[in-house]
């Protein structure tokens, strides 16, 4: 075991992906000499060359569109979108081209492309640097959508994502890049926890809290605080947002009878809405209370001096947990 920051764990995962398969390429703005604005690709261009770690012109649609062309030629591009709010210029290439080429070709064409997106707030940034756009992509069939929450998962999940045949939108919680954790660098991604599955991080008996990305840590803090009050919170890291691991989630909710979904994205038409509906359909007779959602307000992301009010925190999670006991 090695202690690594999440950004370094991703770096190590990408390094192994580049070593494992000559067809793997990294591409994006500033990913070369600079190593990316969050240093996730630090040193990789030096070791693998400019042909495989490509500093692209500044155009997100261009990055994804040319990655599609490279994938048609047999390459496995891993694209970096510098910040969540910059992905929208690439939306046609992701939603209408990348997601649909498999179907358009009736299976003749697969596009094994990973799109890494640092997402979420909490770093005091300006507009467009703190968003959580995952629902747009989970809504689009043809894409797989995952989010890592800790260094160990980041290391294996990025390698598993690169190995997939389907395109994967890979969300990285940017405010957790510097969080450190134990990583088993010898672990083969094939032996690691499956990419598509949710993981129970803390077992509990009173309520199941579902979170992903940056909110996993916040939920764990909420669980620890609740324990002091004698309330047992179970925390599940969803990890995969599409497909959604209904099996793991519903089995857990059937045990606890209560469910709270947490994300930074706005609640209205967010992933929590879909999850709440599914859990309600599948666990109706086990539920003691409606499924509660905790998320950002249904507004644009606010200026950073207000983000502490906007972002769900420990207290807002506990407040929702309390409400599930009010029925």
């Amino acid at each position: 075991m090695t202690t690594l920051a999440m950004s370094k764990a991703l770096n190590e995962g990408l390094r192994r992906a580049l070593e494992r398969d000559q067809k793997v390429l990294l591409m994006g703005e500033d990913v070369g000499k600079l190593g990316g604005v969050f240093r996730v690709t630090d040193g990789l261009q030096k070791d693998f060359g400019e042909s495989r770690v490509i500093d692209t012109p500044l155009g997100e649609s261009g990055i994804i569109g040319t990655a599609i062309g490279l994938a048609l030629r047999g390459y496995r591009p891993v694209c970096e979108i510098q910040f969540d709010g910059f992905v929208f210029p690439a939306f046609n290439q992701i939603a209408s081209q990348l997601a649909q080429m498999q179907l358009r070709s009736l299976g003749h064409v697969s596009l094994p492309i990973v799109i890494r997106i640092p997402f979420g707030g909490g770093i005091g940034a300006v507009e467009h640097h703190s968003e959580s756009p995952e629902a747009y992509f989970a809504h689009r069939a043809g894409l797989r959508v995952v989010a890592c929450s800790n260094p160990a998962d980041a290391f294996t999940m990025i390698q598993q994502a690169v190995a997939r045949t389907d395109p994967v939108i890979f969300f990285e919680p940017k405010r957790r890049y510097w969080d450190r954790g134990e990583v088993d660098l010898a672990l083969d991604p094939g032996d690691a926890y499956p990419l598509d599955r949710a993981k129970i991080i803390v077992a509990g008996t009173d309520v199941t809290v579902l979170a992903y990305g940056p909110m996993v840590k916040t939920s764990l803090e909420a669980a620890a605080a609740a324990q002091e009050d004698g309330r047992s919170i179970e925390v599940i890291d969803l990890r995969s947002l599409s497909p959604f691991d209904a099996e793991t989630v519903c089995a857990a909710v059937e045990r606890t009878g209560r469910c709270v979904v947490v994300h930074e994205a706005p609640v209205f038409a967010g992933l929590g809405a879909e999850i709440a509906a599914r859990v309600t359909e599948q666990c109706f007779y086990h539920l003691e209370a409606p499924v509660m959602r905790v998320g950002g307000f249904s507004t644009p992301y606010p200026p950073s001096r207000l983000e502490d009010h906007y972002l769900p925190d420990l207290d807002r999670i506990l407040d929702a947990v309390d409400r599930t006991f009010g029925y």
Partner: protein
Amino acid sequence: MTVDMDGAAAAAPDLPSVDGLAGAAQELVQLLTPEGERAEHPRYSLELSADEIRALYRDLVLVRRIDSEAGALQRQGELGIWASLLGQEAAQVGSGRALGPRDMAFPTYREHGVAWCRGLDPMKLLELFRGVSHGGWDPAAHNFHLYSIVIGSQALHATGYAMGIQRDGETGEDGAAAIVYFGDGATSQGDVNESFIWASVFNAPVVFFCQNNQWAISEPLEKQSRIPLYQRARGFGFPGIRVDGNDVLACLAVTRAALQAAREGQGPTLIEAYTYRMGAHTTSDDPTRYRLAADLEAWKLKDPIERVKAYLIRGAMTSASFFEGIEKEAAELGTQIRRACLSMPDPRPAQIFEHVYAEPHPLMAAEREQFTAYLSSFANEEGAR
């Protein structure tokens, strides 16, 4: 005439016509006049045998027949829509026949002539327009990519593909290149402009083949550009050339040269094939609302097929029986397409869920199972009666 940059905004209402700019007319590469006379061009020589010219003529006629048969099938309700290539046969056949077997073509949704040259079964195109699939052919089988409907998206795919060719080291005289087709309207799209930048910066072996058919549905070229389109290339750092898009020989020669330059490491070229969309944008469009019949008449005189026919006759390269043979072949092709279209089966309902993902996806499996059970519940009802 030059564009006065400083006065551009003030002069906007009195813009000169696109053709009036920079002596574009003189820069048009033409090897076969509308009257069927052979012309020479200092940079683009072309030596073709009589057999090769006859083969091009056959392509042009058959492609037009595929197009007219599909248009008729749409009118009879057999296709949902059809995008006619009428008038653009030479641009497509000329460029399509310039491609080598290892080159990769990225079409829009109107490149039926290029599809023909690449050997794609026309029925695959009809499948798309009938609503049986979204295309469904294997791009690698004929080095002809899937039709692309969101305007300009495919320009980036071609450029990325060309970057792949570079990485595979398939350059040099025997190397490969990519060619991407798009129209005059597409040149306003961000993706096309980004692809120009990427291709230029990476010196990618890609040819941008713009069929300027003068119309983006109802919008004339003046709504897209203040300068001739081929001149845009210069600002991106690579050559642009305007070719008579109704001249199959010129399109062949110019595309051949651009592809060879790309393969040999000289980077991208923008070819503007100057042509005219003789039909409607698609069968859902009504061009009488926005353009004059007189324009159409003028372009009829520049027909891409008639000039080759005149050239063949003038040069005594063929006989009446040749033309009759081609007409017969075209009629047979039309009949064959009609028959195949009418007997094309509808897809199975469960196909909705197939090929959405390459790998298993629990949501696809669950919805497919539910939907199949739902459908079979009706069958059971009927059985119970």
